[in-house]
């Protein structure tokens, strides 16, 4: 289970990428933007940080458009029966 600090940091990140201006800033300088938002890098799961910083601005925008994606990122098991197949 994620700690409260992790949930807070993810919520802050979610807010950062949801707003177009801070999304741009995050894309250009993720660490400084995170710090300026008052979050600690140590509270962000490394896989989340790695994925976000590997994304282009377009991809960040696509994630932001999904809704409540980041807040719970990786915290749900995703392991349900209702899956699509090809």
């Amino acid at each position, binding site marked *: 289970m*994620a700690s409260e600090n992790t949930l807070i940091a993810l919520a802050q990140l979610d807010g950062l990428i949801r707003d177009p201006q801070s999304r741009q800033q995050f894309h250009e300088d993720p660490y400084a933007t995170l710090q300026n938002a008052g979050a600690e890098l140590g509270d962000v*799961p*490394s*896989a*989340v940080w*790695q*994925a*976000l910083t*590997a*994304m*282009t601005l*377009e*991809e960040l925008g*696509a*994630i932001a*458009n*999904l*809704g*409540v*994606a*980041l*807040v*719970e*990122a*990786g*915290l*749900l*098991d*995703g*392991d*349900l*029966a*209702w*899956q*699509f*197949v*090809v």
Partner: protein
Amino acid sequence: MATWPGSSSSSSVLRCKIALALPPLVAAQRRLDQHPEPAAAWLAFLGVLYGAVRASVPLLETARDRARNLSPADPLAAGLVDYLRRHAEAERGHDEWLLQDLQSVGVASTELLSRPPSGAVAALIGAQYYWVLHYHPVCILGHLMVIEGNPPNRRRLQDLRSRSGLPASAFRTMLEHADLDIDHAAELADLLDRLPLSPIHNEALGLSAISTVAGLTRLLKEVGDRLAATRGTTT
């Protein structure tokens, strides 16, 4: 929290991006999973699923043909042709399986085939046609990584079957994929890590994958909304 060993590989990075996008899809799945009438929910889900599955092989063949056409001047496209050909063959007939599963519980295929597929299905599949035909066929791998990379869970399917009271035949196709897709995901990851992908290609894969998650979420949400509306009118 999941970790991704060897996370600098293309497949690992793509999986991380997909994991970030998954929670809304999981929430939409959970809503169906907890529906008070599991049998009705499952059959509604299979009906929508059929709309997507019937398009799988034609989409794969379109991507294969496009890759083949680009191949002489495009090493990335050349690296896709064999995989897409084999994958189309591996998936062939699964739409028929699904129709048979539905028929086994009294859903007439004529009714299913005559019903216009929803805009959500068209958007999900149509986005892939656009990327394949107007950008690059490698995009389809982002779509496939979402679908093959999250195979149905056998234990949960069996639990759902027990709760729904439906016969095993209504779960055949999904149970088959619970096993098949594990191998398919590994094969796809291996391909992604061997292909000469540029940063722009990796971006295209990410966009395709995130779009697929968004499309599947919309589809499942529509199923949930429809079930809720039906239930509202019958209670």
